[in-house]
């Protein structure tokens, strides 16, 4: 089976999650590679989540929130913006390509925008290739014994 990008998406509940939902109900086509986690606000976004996601096996992480000025909780997305800039630096230091993490703004009515970003980002990750940051990838433990434990 050829490799498919695995992307974690952290979406804020009020704008981006609703926007992505709209994309779905509008039957817009975008790749199924993004696996979404719902947060109430991008302000909840701790950099730890991003690194955990990469460590868990994600090849890319997409963070999506309300447009600046429109945050449901007033300023949460500005906090996310500050942290995102920091994360980009740390990712570089860790040797992860900074393009594997992206912060976008999608409002509740912008289903088409979500679909477009989803397409773009998946294509980017596909070009960058798999990350192989998981424990097993680094330590090279036998995947069959891991699978036996997992079940």
């Amino acid at each position, binding site marked *: 089976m050829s490799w498919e990008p*695995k992307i*974690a998406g952290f979406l804020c509940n009020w704008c981006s999650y609703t926007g992505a939902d709209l994309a779905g109900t509008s039957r817009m086509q975008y790749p199924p590679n993004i*696996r979404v*986690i719902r*947060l*109430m*606000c991008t*302000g*909840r*976004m*701790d950099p*730890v*989540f991003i690194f*955990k*996601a990469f460590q*868990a*096996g*994600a090849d890319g992480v997409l963070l999506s929130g309300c447009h600046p000025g*429109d*945050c*449901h*909780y*007033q*300023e*949460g997305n500005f*906090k996310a913006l500050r*942290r995102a800039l920091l994360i980009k630096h740390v990712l570089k230091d860790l040797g992860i390509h900074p393009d594997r993490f992206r912060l976008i703004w999608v409002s509740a009515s912008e289903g088409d925008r979500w679909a477009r970003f989803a397409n773009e980002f998946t294509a980017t990750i596909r070009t960058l290739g798999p990350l192989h940051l*998981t424990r097993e990838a680094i330590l090279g433990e036998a995947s069959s014994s*891991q*699978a036996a434990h*997992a*079940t």
Partner: protein
Amino acid sequence: MINLSINGKTIEVREGTTILQAARALELRIPTLCFHPSLKPFGACRLCVVQSQTPRGYELTTACNVPCAEGMALETDTPHVREARRLVLEMMLARWPNVQAIRELADEFGITESRFSSESRDEHEDACILCLRCVRTCEELVGVCAISYEDRGMHRRVATPFDHESPDCIVCGACAHVCLTGHIRVMDDARREKGAPLEFPTGPTTSIYLKTLQAVPKVPVIDEDSCIKMQTGGCGTCFTVCEPGAIDYEQKPEEVEVDIGQILIATGFQLMDVRKLTQYGYGRLDNVYTSLEFERMLNATGPTSSRVLLKNGQEPRAVGIIHCIGSRDENHHRYCSCVCCMYALKFAHLVKDRTQAAVYQFYIDLRATGKGYEEFYHRLLDEGVIMIRGKAAEVVEAGWDKRDEGILLVRCEDTLIGRFREVPVDMVVLCPAFEPPYDVSEVGRMFTVSRSPDGFFLERHPKLDPMSTMSDGIYLAGACQGPKDIPATIAQAQGAAARILQLISRGYVEVDPIRAEIIEELCGGCRMCNNLCPYTAIEFIADKKVSKVNDALCKGCGTCVAACPAGAITGKGFTYEQIMAEIDGLFAKAS
């Protein structure tokens, strides 16, 4: 104490009381013109004469300026008194036949015409009748003596020194106020007397004034800067005449702190500044008004007493009402301001009612959605209002010919007949867009209420909850949430009030389970979270040196949870454990 009798009734008065005061205490009618309770009696009009019995027979004496004497026997309504009054009134009628105050007194005494004719006959309704109340007020109450009387006999008149503009006049308006005929008027710099005003005054006209006749509460206020009592210590007439003693010059503004549970924001709207749309000539051309100014003109308490007048005092022959100035406009506001179509129709109806003017409406669409609105529109069509479907492009002055002076041309495309038109009108009324009020961003920040893209406050849900905001306990009503008319505003306001009462009567508040909670044992008191919270829901407990989240204010956004360096804050519903587990689950190998 002095004893005297008037019309057979005895009365005991203090020394110094005038006959007029005594008669009024007995509720007897004595007519006066030049008398004013706050001024020293003058005895100019001679109307207040009464008959007093003397050893030599009878004597006629004025009542306003004669003090009561012991044993006086006075009559206020004998044939001699009536004849004296008749003489005075006929003389006045001969000279000032149309002054209302004199006519009323003449009617009271059955006088319809005068046997005299006067060389100085003045037929104006507002002629000066030389009662000199204005002069006496300026001298006694105001203290500046800016006007006085000059010349003698038939040529006596009230004037300023040498007829020049008096440098001492403080424009208090007291003279205009006491004038019985309206001869004195307080005017603005343009010295206009008739016609529509250049500006619609909203400031005080006297130092003590009612803001509007529909003010709530309907209580006069005193403008500190122009009040003579507050500035110089003189006058104080309002305090003297106030029977309940409701005037207190010592009042100062005070700041009051009130503990509030719920808030209803009803800060209203403002009209767009249509000077920005220079093509319509507002502020540049005469007789171009905004709807609010025109509304003021139509009001019975307005500057023209509800008549529709041009600046030159004449009635317009044609009025053009232009819809959608700044609304439904890519360059300004894309939304529709909701109420303009209906008030424009109302204006048309009132103009048709009060003048002979032709009325033109320049509209894009007619939005007549409420109860009875469409029927009202049809009524107007029957009244002959001319509806032109096409947004007016500009308002220009008519051509070079002197006959066209003052005429405005409204240029538009009449889309129903497919032609460009230039419609000549005398007056143009613009319907400006509704805008959120000037302080909307400050108010929004103060109460953490967001705004929708059009700038008005954001409701929790446009269909299912238009009167709440995302913050519990803060509600919206009226035009601050979006342009709407009066019935909709009332409905929204009553609904919001009901929601507030519901919470108050319930006695408890349900708190959303998704919120933050600080674990006291882990908190290091760094206070980083305190300033991050947009709802100021985190407070620092000084004696325990830890921070604490206010459950009622916290909205559960999680910003503090992510920021806490000690990991001391639990974001209920979205804890670290939960999210980490989700991430693991997302990328777990399928079996």
